[in-house]
């Protein structure tokens, strides 16, 4: 996979990773004698360069959360491997594994389930500091205060319990907890999805600041393209377990190369009331992830689908660092791509 960004070793390399889950281990499936499996992630590969923010976007069931959990080792891949600084951490065990854990941290979607309801905010933040000896025992209190300041929470929050905090405050605690162990990579899985618009904006600004100031590498996962574009340097688009397109953020939005990306962008309700369309951007519904379509998984809903789409699509390189898995990738948005290319655009003053 060409990242086009970095010639040094990537901080994270996801290599042909697949993950399936057994579908209900109930009595009936035992009788059928055929264990059906849900294909959550299928053959996904990409790399994260040090210090970048990589956005992963897709709708429910696209496998983005499973991928996040594979990366933070809450799941194990069925096949493929995930290398952090060249090391496959699934090979570690016991103490070595626990010591390596802090390198990759996660911010969860639901700020109501991601904090232990019976632990005060102060102890929730002090615990990782003590467990991993991040600071000397006497320094723990000061470090907790520093973390609270860092994420913009009042210091008095330390004595409080999660139920006394608002959703936005809890999400800030979740971010502070992830930062407490000084991670190199933070995976944020739908970290702003449950929040009100005004609170979401505050948390997005915070995430952007943290990235800039701490030099963190961030994998930002969301169903919301506008939020992903706001934060990300590069974006990967997932559909039904596959990565279907990967591009620098600006280019993806200016010249998407996969019909699904085009549809996803058009489906987002624009806040400009002057731009309205009468027909839905993507027709039909998501196919079953238990029996995904053969060949291109998007073909059942794709406006461009042809007979050839029943065969696996090639990964078409559109520009350096931008590819799309589509038989017709070069046709999808040729005009838009031409416009996005500065070389192809006439200078503004040349216009009549």
């Amino acid at each position: 996979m060409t990242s086009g960004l970095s010639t040094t070793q990537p901080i994270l390399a996801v290599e042909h990773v697949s993950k399936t889950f057994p579908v209900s281990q109930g009595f009936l499936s035992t009788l059928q004698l055929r264990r059906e499996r849900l294909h959550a992630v299928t053959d996904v590969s990409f790399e994260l360069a040090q210090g970048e923010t990589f956005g992963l976007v897709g709708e429910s069931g696209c496998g983005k959360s499973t991928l996040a959990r594979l990366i933070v080792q809450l799941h194990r891949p069925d096949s493929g491997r995930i290398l952090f600084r060249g090391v496959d951490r699934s090979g570690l065990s016991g103490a070595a594994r626990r010591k390596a854990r802090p390198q990759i941290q996660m911010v969860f979607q639901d700020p109501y389930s991601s904090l232990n309801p019976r632990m005060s905010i102060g102890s929730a933040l002090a615990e990782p500091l003590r467990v991993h000896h991040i600071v000397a025992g006497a320094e723990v209190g000061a470090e907790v205060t520093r973390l609270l300041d860092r994420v913009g929470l009042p210091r008095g929050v330390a004595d409080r319990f999660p139920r006394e905090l608002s959703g936005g405050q809890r999400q800030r605690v979740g971010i502070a907890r992830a930062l407490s162990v000084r991670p190199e990579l933070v995976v944020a899985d739908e970290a702003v999805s449950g929040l009100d618009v005004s609170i979401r904006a505050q948390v997005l600004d915070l995430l952007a600041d943290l990235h800039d100031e701490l030099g963190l590498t961030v994998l930002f996962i969301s169903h919301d393209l506008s939020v992903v574009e706001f934060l990300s340097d590069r974006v990967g688009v997932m559909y039904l377990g596959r990565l279907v397109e990967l591009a620098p953020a600006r280019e993806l939005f200016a010249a998407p190369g996969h019909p699904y990306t085009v549809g996803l962008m058009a489906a987002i309700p624009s806040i400009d009331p002057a731009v309205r369309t009468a027909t839905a951007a993507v027709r039909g519904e998501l196919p079953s992830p238990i029996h995904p379509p053969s060949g291109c998984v998007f073909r059942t809903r794709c406006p461009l689908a042809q007979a050839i789409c029943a065969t696996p699509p090639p990964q078409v390189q559109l520009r350096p660092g931008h590819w799309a898995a589509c038989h017709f990738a070069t046709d999808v948005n040729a005009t838009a791509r031409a416009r996005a290319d500065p070389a192809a655009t006439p200078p503004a003053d040349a216009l009549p």
Partner: protein
Amino acid sequence: MTDIAPVAQARASAAPVLTVAGLTTLYKTRRGEVTAVDNLDLAVQGSEIFGLVGESGSGKSTAIRSIIRLLPKSSARIAAGSVRLGEIDLLALSEAEMRRVRGARMGMVFQDPMTSLNPVMTVGEQIGESLRYHGVGRTEARSRTLETMSLVGIPEVSRRYGAHPHELSGGLRQRVAIAMALVGSPEILLADEPTTALDVTIQDQILKLLVSLRDELGMSVILVTHDLGVVAQTCQRVAVMYAGSIVEVGPVKTVFANPAHPYTRGLLASLPRMGEGRRRLRVIAGSPPDIGALPSGCPFRDRCPMAIAACAEVRPLLEAHGPDHRVACIRHAELVPLAEPLPEALP
């Protein structure tokens, strides 16, 4: 002078379908009653999609549940106001009379299609149930059910008629919920966050469906949402709610191009926009208000960049800001119109 009569006639026919005046709803809490909806006025015209937008705690859901009278009796109480649907005041009806209005003249769609449908009844039975309740015969109920199912874009209606909700995807379930609300041909449809639980491509389909149904059936819709994009794409007029009150109301194009309340401006500025990349989201400080502990005067003043001492004195009422555009802010006249929408948003 000769065309006075036709103008008057046009005015008369443009009488609102639904008029809400002075609606006030209280919730009982441990620490006494709190005002969830405060003196709300709104009028919905025929064939209009009216957006009611706000963050959590703004009272938008309580407002439409008050209108269709679906509030939990043990914890909520409508303290004042009137809700006129045509000639009748819904708040004056008995519970039995109100049941005849629901389904026949007023339909409702809820956020979560999984919990709003009965899991043990077939889809067809559920859609037809309200017709049967309102005295329609079995065969006619079935044919009208099938008709409504195809109207809302459910494929293979005769097969789906006997399906149970769990056999359907989220998008189809929401179509079933819409069919349930529409089968009695109501004059007005109340939709409470109807697409919030859905994926964006399915949300897009459902919103387009609502618009096309309005066009075909000529019904009115109140669409409650937290998503300004949804409002921009579907509504003619919009009311922005904050802490139980409407702070700004007007045509969608006017309000989005030229927001006159600092809160509306802040909300629009809080949205990341595609193609603009990273910039600071000019954030509204603080959190959505706790309706049990509002500041005196304007409820938004503790988050407002324009607040002055006078804002603490009285709760501002809606005043005219432009044609059909009203705003509840004592400083609205000082707000400079936005020539370009949100110039600060540019990099």
